């Protein structure tokens, strides 16, 4: 895995699994690289996207096992790359080996980071994710990708194709839907999947909170620089907050129901965050999703200051109801009420942001298959179809969303390009319908 080590004959996969003494997995095997590493190999980690989350993920990755080093960083902006480089050196000491020669800057920085790494962390704004995921998988590198993984149907199709490709290549992929690595959710899903709620009849999920940070445009910023630095507020970059944030809760519902929606009808708008600094995204959505077997799911998300908050999920079946921690009025437990009453206290939860990296490295070391791309793509598309419905005012089916041809990410990005801010979608009106289905 580490090209600096002298290649040795690679054992077959079966032989590798049979002998822990195997120390080298560094060379290609029948044209494919070995993508697992023995415990003594250094895993060189590259970070693409040097914001707070990316820097945090790099730190968690460095703490995720033995013999792992943060090796390269890349960002569109020098100041962000510098900050991550400095912070990771301070926090990680010798576990961060990031000379200036491996600190890459610009819109193509990802290519150099990937080339220099065994394991890549993708933490840029989500609009870039399909492009970056493709580049990582096609370079035969293992991957930790933040959520969501796309902002539109074409992006999702790329990620689903890369899911197949990563499987074919034996690559290890974990995504940042960290609830999958959170003890309380894992225990809850075990209960739900083993029938504790009986037959599931409905579900609810929410991410209602106040507004988030924003970056004011300065005189010297080009269209592209401002939109990248203020990326939450442009659908081509964030997918809107239903995709960027609420994907976590929609993912829990998909996980619980072991399905994705077939159709949805949504609404939403922009009632509080109306200033130019907030681009053109909505500040609230409410979506009704239809799942197989006539199961209906209520979804709400909102980023409005001073309104009622709620970040939680609930699933109801013929034998009871499950609620997550942070449920208003009952925040302390994951809980099942009904025939199979059960609680799991929040203080028994682990640190899921650390655990997801421990698990990925475990899988790399043990050559254990892990590839989260399908479920993260489906959860992302669940959010995208909700947005499409709210923007357009029309019902949207899974196939509509998956097969959408509207690519929101501008082609041939360049710093001096003109990137006008799209109009705010207005569901049901002609203008809204015109730009709605894909946007």
């Amino acid at each position, binding site marked *: 895995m580490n090209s600096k080590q002298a290649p040795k004959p690679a054992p077959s996969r079966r032989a590798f699994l049979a002998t822990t003494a195997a120390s080298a997995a560094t060379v290609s095997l029948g044209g494919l690289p070995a993508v697992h590493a023995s415990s003594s190999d250094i895993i060189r980690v590259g970070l693409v996207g040097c914001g707070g989350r990316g*820097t945090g993920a790099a730190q968690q990755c460095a703490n995720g096992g033995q013999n792992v080093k943060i090796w390269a960083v890349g960002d569109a902006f020098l100041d962000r790359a510098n900050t991550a480089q400095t912070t990771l050196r301070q926090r990680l000491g010798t576990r961060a080996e990031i000379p200036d020669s491996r600190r890459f800057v610009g819109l193509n920085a990802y290519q150099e980071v990937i080339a220099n790494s065994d394991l890549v962390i993708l933490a840029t704004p989500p609009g870039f994710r399909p492009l970056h995921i493709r580049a990582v998988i096609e370079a035969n590198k293992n991957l930790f990708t933040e959520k969501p993984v796309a902002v539109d149907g074409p992006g999702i199709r790329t990620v689903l194709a890369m899911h197949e490709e990563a499987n074919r290549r034996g690559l290890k992929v974990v995504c940042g839907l960290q609830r999958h690595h959170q003890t309380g959710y894992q225990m809850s899903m075990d209960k739900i999947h083993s029938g504790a709620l009986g037959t599931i009849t409905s579900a609810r999920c929410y991410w209602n*909170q106040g507004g988030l940070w924003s970056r004011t445009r300065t005189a010297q910023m080009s269209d592209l620089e401002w939109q990248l630095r203020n990326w939450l507020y442009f659908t081509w970059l964030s997918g809107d907050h239903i995709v960027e944030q609420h994907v976590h809760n929609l993912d829990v519902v998909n996980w619980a129901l072991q399905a994705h929606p077939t159709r949805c009808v949504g609404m939403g708008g922009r009632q509080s965050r109306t200033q130019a600094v907030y681009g053109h995204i909505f500040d609230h959505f409410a979506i009704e999703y239809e799942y197989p077997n006539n199961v209906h799911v209520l979804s709400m998300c909102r980023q409005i200051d001073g309104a009622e908050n709620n*970040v939680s999920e609930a699933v109801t079946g013929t034998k009871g109801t499950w609620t997550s921690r942070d449920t208003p009025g009952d925040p302390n437990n994951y809980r099942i009420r009904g025939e199979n009453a059960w609680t799991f206290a929040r203080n028994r939860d682990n640190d899921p942001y650390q655990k997801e990296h421990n698990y990925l490295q475990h899988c790399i070391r043990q050559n254990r298959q892990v590839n989260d791309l399908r479920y993260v793509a489906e959860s992302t598309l669940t959010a995208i179809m909700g947005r499409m419905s709210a923007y357009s005012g029309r019902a949207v089916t899974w196939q509509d969303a998956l097969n959408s041809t509207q690519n929101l990410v501008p082609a041939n990005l360049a710093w001096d390009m003109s990137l006008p801010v799209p109009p705010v979608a207005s569901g049901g009106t002609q203008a809204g319908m015109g730009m709605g289905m894909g946007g």
Partner: protein
Amino acid sequence: MVRLINRPLALFAMIVAGPVLLTAAALVQLPKQLPEIEKGKHANYTEKIPETDVSFDMVAIPGGTFMMGSPKGEAGRQDDEGPQHPVKIRPFWMGKMEVSWDEYDLYWRKNAAKKEEPKTAADKAADAVTRPTPPYADETFGHGREGNPVLCISIHAAMEYCRWLSAKTGKLYRLPTEAEWEWACRAGTTTAFSFGDDSAKLDEFGWFDKNSDEVAHKIGKKKANAWGLFDMHGNVAEWCIDHYDKDYYGTLPLDKPSLSPFKAPSEKRYSYVARGGSWVDPPAMCRSAARRGSSKDWLKRDPQQPQSIWWMTDADFVGFRVVCPVEEQDNLKGLKSKITRESPD
């Protein structure tokens, strides 16, 4: 409250646990009976936050001298509560209630407390105080907002709130020292709780694990202590200024009172004292002397680096209340949080 202060000291002598660690020689320098409560010259007041409809009550807390910490043998006692040592406290006012979202929202929410009219000098000073970045969460974490105590915030946020409140009102507000907090909690008592030693009575005075239904409650719904302070036992634990040091009491003299001691806060993010126990804690953690120190665990679900210096995603059992010194002690003058985004753990 005034009635209580004027009670003969002899009354308190009857319930003094006994300064078992003091030598006869040391006693010469100490008041004959502890606690010794000075007669207060200040009175309760109500603070209205300017340009808002929000107000809160401040209770006059007398100065005096007491044995800080718990005696060996107190049920539920931990080692960090000793040795008991004499502490002299200067008079101050303390918030009658834990700070609620009604007050805190005025500080941290952009534009929440602003009006259209030209700003006053106090407004400008208040605006100069740093303010929390918006969290990626429901900051109440399902515990409720109106009338509910602030929780899931850092000591840095609590200290900056105090600076904001000071600028807004022109009075000096800050967090209590750990010694001030325990003095105010005890309200002249030497027992495990301000109402005695029997934890069975805790249900009358506070929210703890057995009566809280696992949620923080609106402030002021239980009985106050003898000095008129609500929710000192339970509901949310309360930030104090001090760094948490389990051995700190052992560094203080046993034979003469330490004057308003505190373990000064630094640029480090951890560990700081939170007192009084909470809705999630058993009665033992809600005792007057029970101590707790913050840890990284309280911010487990913040995946950013640097992590937030404002919010503590997993500390939905910690809030705070403010104090206002009658006359600020020299070594606390000008004190402000030194924590920044670059601060080490």
